[in-house]
């Protein structure tokens, strides 16, 4: 009596997964040298990297001059970082009067504390800190940086410069373009033709012109049209231009997130009696924004780097200050050091934003498909 059917009498207990770790040498063997062709490619790449990276390290670190205050300190074959350290103050503060630089320090320190507070998940009272960062802090920063009241010396914005100016533009641009972008994205999806029309025109206009054009318009053209007594500050005009320009990009990034949220989410909110703004704020936006964090941060990074374009309208940001230093007759011929340093500063800020966004993405991931 044979049959084709079988059945199990004992269940199999769960076992631990086999150990897949191999150690460093094992990893190299498995990933770089697992075959003749792979080994050859790996060796070639390693040799090339060594040929390229080593000379750079030699130039930038090993043979470099670090100590000194004048050009005479530059004796080695490598880079002369004295060029940077000698002008460090102006790279940070621009032409901000020396006696008032403590005001910039306070604003920087306050900003650093607030950003850290908001970035570290363990800190409490986030709501209030966020509220202060968006309302109280800008007012304090404005009065401290501009001065002219509370017995503080007035510092016109044309004296601003260096990293301080770069950060000012970047922070205002980032903080301004995100909420404006959200509103534009929501408006573009509105059923009201007027609201929708305004948002579409705004987005398509600002997205369609180069940032350089926007800055030129803001600095050169606008004063021609606006009566003389209504003379806005040049920096303010640039800030508004940058904010509008990037909010258009931001709007489209956020709209792609809104688009990706299923109709059911909105319907569930409607069925529960939630109003439009409640559904948007409590259900749709938290999910949509989370989904487009990479796109938002991408825009932030682009914004941060493109702050350097303000040099064409005569504002001396980090890059422009370094460039100005290159034309100093005492320091001719140090452009490589200048640009490498500028690149390193931009890279540190942009890379930090990138890492932080990845961390936030992991933290907010509740692992859920709908």
């Amino acid at each position: 009596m044979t049959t084709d059917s079988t059945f199990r009498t004992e269940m199999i207990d769960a076992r631990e997964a086999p150990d897949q770790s191999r150690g460093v040498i094992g990893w190299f063997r498995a990933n770089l040298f697992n075959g003749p062709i792979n080994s050859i490619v790996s060796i070639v790449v390693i040799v090339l990297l060594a040929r390229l990276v080593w000379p750079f390290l030699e130039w930038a670190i090993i043979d470099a001059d670090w100590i000194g205050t004048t050009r005479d300190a530059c004796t080695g074959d490598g880079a002369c970082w004295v060029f940077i350290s000698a002008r460090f103050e102006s790279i940070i503060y621009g032409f901000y009067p020396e006696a008032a630089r403590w005001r910039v320090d306070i604003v920087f320190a306050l900003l650093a504390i607030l950003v850290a507070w908001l970035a570290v998940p363990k800190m409490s009272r986030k709501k209030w800190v966020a509220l202060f960062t968006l309302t109280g802090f800008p007012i304090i920063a404005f009065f401290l940086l501009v001065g002219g009241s509370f017995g503080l010396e007035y510092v016109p914005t044309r004296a601003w410069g260096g990293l301080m100016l770069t950060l000012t533009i970047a922070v205002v641009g980032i903080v301004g373009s995100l909420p404006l972008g959200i509103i534009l994205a929501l408006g573009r999806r509105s059923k009201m033709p007027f609201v929708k029309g305004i948002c579409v025109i705004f987005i398509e206009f600002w997205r369609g012109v180069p940032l350089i054009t926007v800055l030129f318009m803001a600095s050169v053209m606008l004063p021609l049209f606006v009566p003389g007594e209504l003379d806005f500050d040049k920096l303010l005009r640039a800030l508004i231009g940058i904010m509008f320009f990037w909010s258009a990009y931001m709007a489209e990034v956020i709209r792609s997130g809104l688009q990706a949220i299923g109709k059911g989410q909105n319907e569930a909110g409607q069925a529960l009696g939630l109003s439009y703004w409640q559904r948007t704020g409590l259900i749709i936006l938290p999910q949509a924004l989370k989904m487009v964090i990479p796109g938002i941060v991408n825009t932030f990074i682009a914004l941060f780097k493109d702050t350097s374009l303000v040099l064409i309208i005569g504002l001396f940001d980090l890059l422009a200050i370094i460039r100005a230093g290159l034309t100093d007759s005492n320091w001719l011929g140090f452009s490589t050091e200048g640009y490498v340093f500028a690149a390193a500063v931009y890279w540190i800020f942009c890379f930090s934003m990138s890492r932080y966004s990845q961390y936030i993405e992991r933290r907010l991931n509740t692992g859920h498909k709908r």
Partner: protein
Amino acid sequence: MSEATASRTTAPGSDGPMIEIDHLNKWYGSFHVLRDINLTVTKGERIVICGPSGSGKSTMIRCINHLEEHQQGSIVVNGVPMTNDVKRIEQIRRNVGMVFQHFNLFPHLSVLENCCLSQIWVQKKPRAEAEKTAMEYLERVQIADQALKYPGQLSGGQQQRVAIARALCMRPEVMLFDEPTSALDPEMIKEVLDVMIELAHEGMTMLCVTHEMGFAKTVADRVIFMDQGQIIEEAPPHEFFNNPRSERTQLFLSQILGH
């Protein structure tokens, strides 16, 4: 087929209409999706709506809380006539709970937060009270132990029970079910149906679009059969299943029960 729609039956022992749908017509573009729907649901009545796909049954119950807009006719829910006024619509929605085919839980909120959200923001309850109510209903659908998990960590049946609890937290007068078991694995259908049966026995007014004919036989006061945007037949379940009058109904029943 119009004899059936013309005569409106009401369940015994009920006290007044909860939902009155009168000459309801709806078009998607030029497509006439709901055709002259008349339906009165009394308080405590349990109605099962069935029919082939595309027959307009989901569209009809979605009109009751204005997830779909209708072009002609009137809907009155618990004495409040439906208009296009947002305040009026929200007032009606507060009294009407809805459960969807695909659950539509909020994936970024925990089960407990899903249940508290509308209590806090619509009913303006303090959080503690909202959580207490939420736990009560989660207990009733036997999922209180999962309250702190996220929807993505639950099975389909569990998610649908959470969705039912979430709707009940608003203490609605009517519950609308839009194919609540259609997206579930077979082994999970029963746990959801059990909750719905219990709810029916407690006297909740229910409109349920479903193909679960066993459920219809157990709890429905009336079964409504729809096809091509119109009500073809409505009858108490024993009559509907044993003695369907229209040919379309007979064909439909033979197709879904015949294997």
